[in-house]
């Protein structure tokens, strides 16, 4: 199987492929998933620190008054929101909701606009 796969042509120049919005949402879903998976250990570490001692708790809360930590948190929140919203869209597909091409494009735009709005809202509240 892999021998014939080596001879098939591939074309991955994303700047020349006319990508529909649904593809962007899908790529983002996968990439955001990988990013979130790799951030799990850091998050557990922060949780552990915050529970272990008053100094640990103080350190974690102080961390989030740092402007770089805040920026990182907002970015991670954005990544998380994309994954969550695109994931909900996937779950709807699983029950046959919004599967048609037009509906899928509308839901894709909805995901992108919602996550942007929510990130702005959340960073307004948190930052």
């Amino acid at each position, binding site marked *: 199987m892999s021998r014939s796969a080596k001879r098939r042509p591939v074309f991955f120049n994303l700047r020349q492929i006319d990508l529909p919005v649904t593809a962007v949402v899908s790529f983002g879903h996968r990439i955001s998933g990988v990013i979130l998976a790799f951030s*799990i250990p850091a998050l*557990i570490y922060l949780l*552990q620190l915050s*529970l*272990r001692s*008053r100094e640990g708790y*103080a350190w974690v809360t102080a961390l989030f008054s740092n402007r770089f930590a805040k920026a990182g948190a907002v970015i991670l929140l954005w990544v998380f929101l994309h994954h*969550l919203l695109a994931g909900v869209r996937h779950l709807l597909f699983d029950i046959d909701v919004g599967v048609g091409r037009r509906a899928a494009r509308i839901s894709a735009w909805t995901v992108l606009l919602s996550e942007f709005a929510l990130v702005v809202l959340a960073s307004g509240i948190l930052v």
Partner: protein
Amino acid sequence: MRSPLTGLRAWLMQRLTAVYLAGFTLFLLAHFAWDAPVSFDAWRNWLLSPVVRVATALFFVALLLHAWVGVRDVILDYVHPLAVRLSLLAALASGLLATGVWMLGVLLGL
């Protein structure tokens, strides 16, 4: 006759854990919007209270299972040489298991 690997179990696990993860996230958000803990003691008392502690532990178990299915799919899609693929899958499984043991220690051992 052997039954084929349809991927149904992984698919189901990914969807079920996703629902729990989303639900718990909403619960967390609602609690913090309504009654955010403001001190070390408040934080500990809330998170380590019996129900929240177990629900949080379940959240992380679900998270690790969800991450396993997801990252495994990525590896299977892009890594074809068998030795590299198996090594990465093994590293992923080890990493997730270690994280799980660590997390259970944090939540259930304190």
